[in-house]
């Protein structure tokens, strides 16, 4: 089991979709929301994902394929 912290940024067309629910359901990942801000035209969620490494990997790939931007919660760590 491993834990990872990520930020999801949702485009407007995905705000009404239960992406985080599906992520937990389809990939056996425990999702734990720590901070969020969602309005009618955009949204972001900072959350912790807990599960098997390969499930988390596949889960993130699925979320990304739906059109959600996934970033490490620390922001970019590569600097100039």
């Amino acid at each position, binding site marked *: 089991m491993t834990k990872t*912290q990520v930020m999801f*940024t949702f485009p407007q067309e995905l705000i009404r979709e239960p992406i985080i629910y599906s992520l937990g359901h389809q990939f056996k990942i425990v999702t734990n929301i*720590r*901070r969020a*801000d969602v309005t009618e035209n*955009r949204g*972001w969620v*900072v959350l*912790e994902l807990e599960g098997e490494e390969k499930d988390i990997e596949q889960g993130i790939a699925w979320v990304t394929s739906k059109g959600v*931007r996934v*970033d*490490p*919660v*620390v*922001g*970019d*760590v*590569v*600097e*100039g």
Partner: protein
Amino acid sequence: MSYARALRCRKCGQEYPLQPLNRCDFCLSPLEVSYDYKAMARGLSREELAAGPRSMWRYRDMLPVEGEEVDIGTGFTPLVKADNLGRELGLDRLYIKNDCLNPTYSFKDRAVSVAVSKAREFGFDTVACASTGNLAASVAAHAAKAKMRAYVFVPSDVEPGKLVGAAIYDPILVKVDGSYDDVNRLCTEVAKRYSWGFININLRPYYAEGSKTLGYEVAEQLGWRAPDCVVAPAASGLLFTRIWKGLDELAMLGLIEPVNTHMYIAQAAGSSPIVNAFNAGSLHINPVTPDTIVKSIAIGNPADGHYALMVARQSGGGACAVDDEEAIAGVQLLAQTEGIFAEAAGGVVVGVLRKLAASGVIKRGELTVASITGAGPRTQEVLTDIVRPFAVQPTIESVEESIGALVRSA
């Protein structure tokens, strides 16, 4: 003696002992060093600070370092009155803070000097970072001085020329076959796996503090006062917030009058998530995919973007972006008026300064400091078409024929 007392969450205020940690366990927000300012105020005076070494370590008591510092001669860089550039832009009291003159040619030495000092204090024998240039060189140089091992992760599409500035100090260079986002994700994983001091991850709260010295120096060099306006580039947004914190702390300690400085963020249009948010009136940064030649500030998901935005707003400042062409024009203008060869990020600052002055946002008489954060020679590939020499034979006739008319018209 250091007056640092804890790490504190910038969002929820939760406190942690001073340790290698950069995120709050509860809300996953960034941590920053908090100090006992009352004790610090009692222990500090202008005279004592001014009598310190001519480096950033004259402000040692305001930094979170207990042990001996790892210093390669960073800081107390010139603050020059830029009258020629000021005339071009219509600003009567323009100053350039020239951080090109740090040992590895950028302001990163300030931050890294504190981070590597702290890494040694925490007992790490290895430091690491992910970088495309300036940070890599600085980390490698400080590790060499501290006799520590350094791992530097770079994206595979980095120009080989850029890596020379890091490789000379003999770090372990790791070239990652993947996109920028891949490198980013990989390094957060690597940082979890190995017990290294990762400069911009678990040492980030300390790294951040080093940048405050830029603000301290500007105030001291102006004769212990804050400027009316500061224009500084923003990549992660960290430096921008720390210049402000530096000025704010000096005022809190009674070393300068209350600060009324307007802080302006400069970004490249191809990577301007903070400027976008400012213009949209939002407090949330929407990450972008960078597309600009100004690589040293091309960060799409700025870790301190939110806080930089807050500083720009609260200080009555602003945020402005210029495109790549304007950035290059800015580099040339700075060199041709003040004799300072900055990297493209410096051109962005000059470009933004030009716009803000032209639109009257920054007024002619305001004491304005432009922060030039890195030197040009490392990224000269963006400027190759400026080299257009006159080709002559080694005879005076040939010289006369080629440039005679030019000489006579001068």
